[in-house]
């Protein structure tokens, strides 16, 4: 017997027209996903109550149970339309209706409700229950998602990346973002970062590691470069697809350690941001047509470059960029190549890149890196001429499966 449900049921039986009693019986049914039952009692609550705030919350809960059930958007909107006039100075209703409109791809409406809700002051009173409004970031979240549809591709990625760094978000919001990013072909994987507290667990230590407070790359690529090169300072990099200059950036940490190099990205806004925030330079260039020989001539590299990042979208473009690298003139000590195999399993990009780099004498040391165990998106390579045998052995991990990057980077018991 569900004692809590039974208690609230008996409360109801002895006071069937008490709005609050109905509300909490609705909550009990909702907890066990008996949504139709909860609807009965939330609706009774709204009908019976004289308290506008309680009616408002009951209508929000009605909208929530329709949303949880799925396929009842018209009814969900009806409940939200009934809720908002009851408390037009509260943000929850605007957020939930923006969320609903965005889910049904009515982006203009979603943005309208987002803007209406965003301008409201924080309410003085709190609601009885969590109606699913993340007050820290709810409206910002909705703005990002509608941003793409109104303003296009170029600035969306940086907004998402910034958002993810700024807030700790719920699984629901993370799932929505991941789905959204994949839908619009902005490959997104959850990020995972190094902090100094993890120093003792690092797979392989390197010189100067104790001076590193945190890294920036999305999947420890910067730490992998330093691990492979024993903490080399003053290295040189070529970064193809630099993205945001800080968040999830593979060369920011290297720059802090004295590295120089050249970065390119197709996104002019991000490149502009890069050049404002970073010491090293970035250029707006199409990775599939760029002249990498000329670019490398602008660095201090003579014939050896310490790190090459190749990360474009989609994977086909990343491979096209790889084909344009002047491997005959330059050798690269460490290469991270984003093949996005999980989105591109039939295209053969991963296989082709492996064949090419192997033929050129590079050694695959970590295959199929993933940040979630499911999505293999990158391979990590080194040139064996520049890595000691002992270190090569320490950093190598070749498996038949996807490798969770945290499992690779750290020694867990």
């Amino acid at each position, binding site marked *: 017997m569900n004692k809590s449900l039974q208690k609230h049921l008996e409360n109801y039986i002895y006071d069937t027209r008490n709005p609050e009693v109905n509300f909490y019986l609705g909550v009990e049914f909702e907890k*066990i996903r008996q949504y*139709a039952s909860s609807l*009965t009692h939330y609706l009774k609550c709204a009908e019976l109550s004289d308290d506008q705030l309680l009616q408002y919350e009951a209508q929000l809960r009605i909208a929530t149970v329709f949303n949880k059930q799925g396929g009842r958007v018209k009814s969900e909107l009806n409940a939200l339309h009934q809720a908002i006039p009851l408390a037009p100075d509260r943000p929850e209703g605007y957020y939930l209706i923006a969320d609903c409109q965005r889910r049904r791809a009515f982006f203009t409406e979603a943005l309208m409700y987002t803007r209406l809700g965003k301008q409201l002051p924080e309410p003085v009173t709190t609601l009885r229950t969590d109606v699913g409004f993340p007050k820290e970031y709810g409206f910002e979240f909705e703005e990002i998602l509608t941003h793409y549809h109104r303003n296009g591709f170029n600035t969306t990625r940086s907004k998402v990346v910034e958002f993810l760094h700024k807030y700790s978000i719920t699984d629901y919001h993370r799932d929505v973002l991941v789905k959204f990013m994949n839908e619009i072909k902005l490959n997104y994987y959850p990020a995972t970062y190094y902090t100094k507290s993890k120093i003792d667990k690092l797979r392989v230590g390197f010189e100067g590691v104790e001076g590193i407070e945190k890294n920036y790359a999305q999947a420890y690529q910067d730490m992998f470069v330093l691990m492979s090169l024993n903490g080399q300072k003053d290295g040189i990099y070529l970064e193809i697809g630099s993205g945001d200059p800080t968040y999830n950036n593979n060369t920011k940490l290297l720059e802090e350690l004295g590295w120089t190099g050249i970065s390119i990205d197709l996104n002019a806004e991000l490149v502009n941001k890069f050049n404002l925030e970073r010491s090293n330079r970035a250029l707006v260039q199409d990775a599939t047509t760029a002249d990498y020989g000329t670019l490398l001539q602008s660095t201090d590299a003579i014939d050896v470059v310490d790190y090459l990042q190749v990360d474009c979208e989609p994977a086909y473009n990343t491979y096209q960029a790889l084909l344009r690298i002047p491997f005959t003139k330059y050798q690269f000590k460490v290469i991270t190549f984003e093949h996005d195999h999980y989105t591109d399993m039939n295209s053969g990009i991963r296989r082709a890149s492996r064949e090419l780099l192997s033929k050129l004498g590079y050694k695959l040391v970590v295959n199929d890196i993933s940040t979630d165990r499911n999505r293999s998106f990158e391979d990590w390579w080194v040139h064996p001429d520049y890595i000691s045998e002992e270190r090569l052995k320490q950093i190598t991990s070749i498996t038949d499966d996807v490798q969770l990057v945290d499992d690779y980077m750290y020694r867990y018991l």
Partner: protein
Amino acid sequence: MEINLVKRVLDSGGMIRPLIVPSEQTDGSGICNPSVFIDGEDILVNIRHVNYDMYHSEFNQKYPSWYGPLIYLHREDDVCLRTQNFLAKLTPELDIERVDRIDTSDLDVEPIWNFIGLEDGRLFRWDDKLYICGVRRDTTDNGQGRMEFSEIEYVDGGVKEISRHRIEAPNNPDSYCEKNWMPILDKPFHFIKWTNPIEVVRADLETLSSETVYKSEDYQPAQRDFRGNSHVINYKGNYIALIHEVDFWYNENERKDSQYYNRFIVWDKEWNFVRASQRFKFMDNYIEFSCGLAKHGDDFLISFGAQDNTAYILKANQEFIESFIYE
């Protein structure tokens, strides 16, 4: 009229339990019209799941839906009314010990009407076979409803429908919809088809036909029709059953609304009307519907649905029910 029978039942030492079917099997939509039956030592209940939520704006109707005060909210991409049935076994404390979806797949055919499945099945055992008997409307292209016997069994860790019999209406083969026939538990294959005046019919599973075996002329003056609800059970030399009455009306915006009321009815062994209780609501809902009445020791078990969204089982001691009927 009593608007809260359950409160009085609890005050007299009774109990109530919600009947829950896990939402993984229902998407959380309506659970309703349960039918309780005592099968030897077991307390069994057939529970109907419908693929809609009933939205019913009661009282002052401040918050009607986009359509009106009373609407069946299906998924917006599925306008069919789909019913599936679950067989639950209860503990003596009326908690669910197990609940199984009744697997009808061996006998299902492609539906040709959009009310799909066996609706409002009453559960009973006749000739040592466990049946649910309700109305099915998906076998003709005009939704004609006929009572169907669905024989079920516990097999292979689940519950399966093993035979299905569709029974023609007596007297009028063109009748549109036969439903809510009330099984007379101690008279196998007999049902009360009409309650006022009473008409008893017998179903024949071999010929798939039915015939009227008793028809009274004794009409009890009443404001509304008495419509069939529960089983008809033998109690102290009489028969007792639950019936329902319905008010349908259109509100000021010409949208449909309704209220249901319940009554106990008592007949003697010759089907003479003995007594009708006052009208009552179980728990102060506009719509409540009971498909089950059983005698269990010194108690009655009554299973009912509230607003088509929730199913309950109620245990009431017989002294209370008797006194209520004669209030």
